[in-house]
C-alpha cells in the first residue's frame, strides 16, 4: 500500500488537488450564481442543482479544453520546435519524428517494448501518435461541451435580459464563446512559453522540469 502510494504520488497528489479545487469551485460558483439570481429576481439554487447546471458545466469545460489544447499543442510542437538551453526541449538538430533506432521501433524494439510498438503496421502507427491524439480528442470534446453548456447558460442569461436565445451556431460565433475560449488559451500559451524560457536560466534542485543546478545555461534536454 505504502509502495503504491509512493510510486504513484504525482498522479494521486494531483488527483486529490483536482477534486479539492473542483469542490471549492462548486461552492464558490453556487454562491456567485445565487448572487446573480438575486439581482435578476430568479430563484436560489441548491448545491446539487448548481453542479448539474449549464453554468457550472461551462465554467469547468472552458478550463478543461484549454488545458488539453495546451498539452496537445505542446506534444506536437516539441516534435518540430526546439529551444536551445531548455530542459523542456529536445536537442537542437533532433527536430522531427526521429529514426526507428532513436524511437526503439522495428528491429530496435526490446522484449519489454509495448505490444503495439512491437506489432508494426497500423498498430504501431496509431500507438506512435496516441499521446497527441488522445490529448487532441479530449480538447475537442471539452471544447464541444463548452459550446453546448455555454449556449445553455448564455441563453438563460439572454432570456433574463429579455433578449432572444441563440442557436448553437449563433453561440459559437458569439463574443461570449470566444471571450471564454481565448482568455483561457492566452494564459496556457503564456505558461508554456514561460516555463520553456525561464527554465533555461533558472533551476529547481531535484525537479525533472529543471536542469541539474550546475548545468550551464546552454545545455538542452537534461533534467534533474
Amino acid at each position, binding site marked *: 500500500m505504502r509502495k503504491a502510494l509512493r510510486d504513484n504520488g504525482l498522479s494521486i497528489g494531483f488527483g486529490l488537488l483536482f477534486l479539492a479545487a473542483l469542490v471549492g469551485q462548486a461552492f464558490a460558483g453556487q454562491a456567485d450564481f445565487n448572487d446573480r439570481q438575486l439581482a435578476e429576481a*430568479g430563484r436560489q439554487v441548491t448545491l446539487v*442543482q448548481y453542479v448539474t*447546471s449549464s453554468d457550472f458545466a461551462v465554467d469547468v469545460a472552458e478550463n478543461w479544453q484549454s488545458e488539453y489544447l495546451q498539452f496537445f499543442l505542446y506534444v506536437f510542437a516539441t516534435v518540430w520546435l526546439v529551444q536551445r538551453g531548455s530542459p523542456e526541449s529536445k536537442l537542437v538538430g533532433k527536430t522531427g519524428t526521429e529514426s526507428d533506432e532513436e524511437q526503439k521501433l522495428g528491429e530496435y524494439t526490446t522484449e519489454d517494448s509495448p505490444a503495439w510498438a512491437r506489432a508494426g503496421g497500423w498498430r504501431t502507427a496509431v500507438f506512435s501518435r496516441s499521446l497527441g491524439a488522445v490529448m487532441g480528442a479530449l480538447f475537442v470534446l471539452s471544447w464541444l461541451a463548452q459550446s*453546448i453548456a455555454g449556449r445553455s447558460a448564455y441563453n438563460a442569461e439572454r432570456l433574463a435580459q*429579455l433578449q*432572444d436565445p441563440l442557436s448553437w451556431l449563433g453561440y459559437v460565433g458569439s463574443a461570449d464563446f470566444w471571450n471564454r475560449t481565448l482568455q483561457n488559451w492566452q494564459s496556457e500559451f503564456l505558461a508554456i512559453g514561460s516555463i520553456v524560457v525561464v527554465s533555461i536560466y533558472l533551476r529547481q534542485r531535484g525537479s525533472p522540469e529543471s536542469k541539474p543546478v550546475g548545468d550551464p545555461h546552454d545545455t538542452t534536454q537534461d533534467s534533474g
Partner: protein
Amino acid sequence: MACAWAVAGCGAGQRGEEAGAAAEAFVAALAEGDGAAACGLLSPEAVEQVVSQEGKDCEAAVLALGLPAEASGTAEVWGDRAQVKTGSDVLFLAELEDGWKVVAAGCAPQGERPYECEVEG
C-alpha cells in the same frame, strides 16, 4: 427536475410544456377579463411594476394595459427562464418557487437590444 438544470436546452420537454401552459393560462385570463387570475401568473416584480405604472390594483391594472391575448405558442426554455412567442406577442417567464411566472409581456423587438415590454418585472 433533472431536465430543469440539464446542460442542453430542453425546451420541447416537460418544462417547456409547463412554461407554455403558464403563458397560455395568462393570455386566457386576459382574454376572459379575469385580472385576478392574470395577476396570479405574474412574478412579484411584474405585479409591482403594473400597479405602480397604472396607479390601480393589479387586477384592474393588468387588464387596462390592453395586452395581446392570443392563444400562446411553444415555449423555449433555458435554465430557469423561458420565452413564449404568440402570433402577436412575446412573453418572458421565470421559474420561481411557486412555478412558472410571467416576468415580461407585451414585448416588441428592438433589433440587437432587449425587447421593450409593457409589463416588465
